[in-house]
């Protein structure tokens, strides 16, 4: 125990003397939590719309004003021909073209049906999909309006219609930040835990100080604990800072209990620190450790369900996500903070991550034995 005390004192002194680490620990969570949730907004607004109105009737004008007043579309061009509108798309000034055919109003009134043409710039798939979805919905609504206006009272309805009324559970206002902030907190804890632990040990290899420790009576578990404990504490500090920022800036208060959250974070940190440790046993320089860590963290995050739902990934990706500790963390953060899940609800996630922690740390210790 006495040896461990000396190792810990040394480690904390080194950490608090390293300005770069302090900045990473204290400033990064705040900045990232302020910027990322606002920037990674999936709600598509301000879609640039070019209109080719060949009708110039009351109906066509009403349709256009209905679309532009929805808030999702911005009229970027009012063109005389489709080709003219296409030029706007080519210049990246318009995302979507709505073509209203000549005699739109009269044909519609006479024949009870008419066709509209929409062309979408699909370079940005998300924007294209959502944009055409929105505009379809608006046109549907417009259609509904027309039908009820034209319907003669007393006369039968033209046909049965189904109306869907949905209610949004857990996030009634579909507040995007409520969805993103917990995920980004998971990301922060992962980065701090994974990178700092891996780099720190490799730094000792580079400096040659690890050799000096190896010839001393310091045992491997002393050394590993001496590295795990400081970064485990720092990880918890970063997480606490994240919770504070989420509360102060976004007013997010976890619906579930803090005990549940911290229990999971504490176990998760063991897993991610073990991962950093394992990586460090394979590397001789900080550069190698950095690159390898970067590779894994990038995949962990992009495939962890932070930005895109795991449920909509192909089967092989879903399998891969099962081996991705970050995906469990992001899921648990959302479950506890937004939905108010308790320890019993997250028990599966907790046990899996505990399994990761055991396997990764054991792997690190075994692998150390070989390289020492």
């Amino acid at each position, binding site marked *: 125990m*006495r*040896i461990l*005390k*000396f*190792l810990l*004192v*040394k480690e904390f*002194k*080194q950490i608090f*003397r*390293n300005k770069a680490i302090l900045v990473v620990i204290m400033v990064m969570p705040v900045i990232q939590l302020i910027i990322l949730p606002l920037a990674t907004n999936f709600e598509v607004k301000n879609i640039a719309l070019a209109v080719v109105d060949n009708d110039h009737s009351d109906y066509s004008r009403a349709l256009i004003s209905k679309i532009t007043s929805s808030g999702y579309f911005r009229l970027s061009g009012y063109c005389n021909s489709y080709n003219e509108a296409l030029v706007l798309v080519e210049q990246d000034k318009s995302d979507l073209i709505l073509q209203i055919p000549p005699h739109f109003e009269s044909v519609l009134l006479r024949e009870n049906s008419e066709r509209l043409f929409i062309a979408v710039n699909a370079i940005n798939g998300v924007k294209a999909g959502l944009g055409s979805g929105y505009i379809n919905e608006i046109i549907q609504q417009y259609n509904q309006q027309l039908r009820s206006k034209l319907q003669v009272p007393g006369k039968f309805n033209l046909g049965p219609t189904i109306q869907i009324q949905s209610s949004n559970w857990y996030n009634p206002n579909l507040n995007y930040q409520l969805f993103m902030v917990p995920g980004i907190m998971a990301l922060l804890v992962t980065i701090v835990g994974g990178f700092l632990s891996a780099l720190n040990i490799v730094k000792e290899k580079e*400096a*040659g*100080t690890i*050799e*000096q*420790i*190896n*010839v*001393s*009576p*310091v*045992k491997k578990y002393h050394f590993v604990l001496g590295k795990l404990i400081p970064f485990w504490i720092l990880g918890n500090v970063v997480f606490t800072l994240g919770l504070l920022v989420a509360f102060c800036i976004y007013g997010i208060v976890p619906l579930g209990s803090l005990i549940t959250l911290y229990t999971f974070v504490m176990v998760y940190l063991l897993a991610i620190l073990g991962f950093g440790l394992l990586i460090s046993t394979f590397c001789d320089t900080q550069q190698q450790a950095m690159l390898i860590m970067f590779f894994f963290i990038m995949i962990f995050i992009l495939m962890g369900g932070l930005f895109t739902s795991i449920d909509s990934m192909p089967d092989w990706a879903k399998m891969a996500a099962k081996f991705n500790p970050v995906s469990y963390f992001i899921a648990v953060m959302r479950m506890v903070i937004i939905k108010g899940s308790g320890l019993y609800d997250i028990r599966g996630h907790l046990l899996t991550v505990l399994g990761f922690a055991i396997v990764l740390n054991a792997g690190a210790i075994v692998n150390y034995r070989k390289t*020492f």
Partner: protein
Amino acid sequence: MEQVIVCNGLTKRFGDFTAVDSITFEVNKGEIFGFLGANGAGKTTAMRMLCGLSTPSSGKATIAGFDVYKQTEQIKKNIGYMSQKFSLYDDLTVQENITFFAGIYGISDAEIKKNGDDLLLRLGMQDQAKKMVSSLPLGWKQKLAFSTAVIHKPKIVFLDEPTGGVDPVTRRQFWELIYEAADNGITIFVTTHYMDEAEYCKRVSIMVDGKVAALDTPSNLKEQFGANTMDEVFYHLAREAKRGE
């Protein structure tokens, strides 16, 4: 005479390559033992086995009476080690380094204080105690590294090219520290490429291609090879090496 290092047919193979080929020698208590050899002759590998950092492929060896196969933890408690790569913590002060390296050997707080103060006094570094190690000149760092390597009063200290890149005056001072430690009964096991330093040793072994090619006092070696200096002795032996660098 008590023998603190006993080596018998110690061998280390890496695959087909025999880095250390059945070396046999003894080192007496309080002796300054020079361990010479060209680059790649197997010195560092041999030293790592003696320190318990690497398990031998075959042969026997005991360090301070402890077996290099089974009792590496006891060996580590009884030796000091200073590598050719400078290995104090740059981002800790002189005092903090002393406390840390004394502490991990399980020395009591009172002893850490006393040994640390003695060390600073001996090196004349009392004023530097609170300075970062990174701010010290290399020569001072090396002297400090040596003193920290023996702060727990080990039976044997292993020095792997301790004076590389150090100026002649500091080297002389460094050897004064080594003599002082030897006078206190610490056995010194040192590798070096400086042949004037070899003359400072009580006995010298010269490794060629993983084998001990010669082992005697410097004066006997010079006589044996009809040479005037250790330089000539070394050259005579090392040029027969088949192994490249």
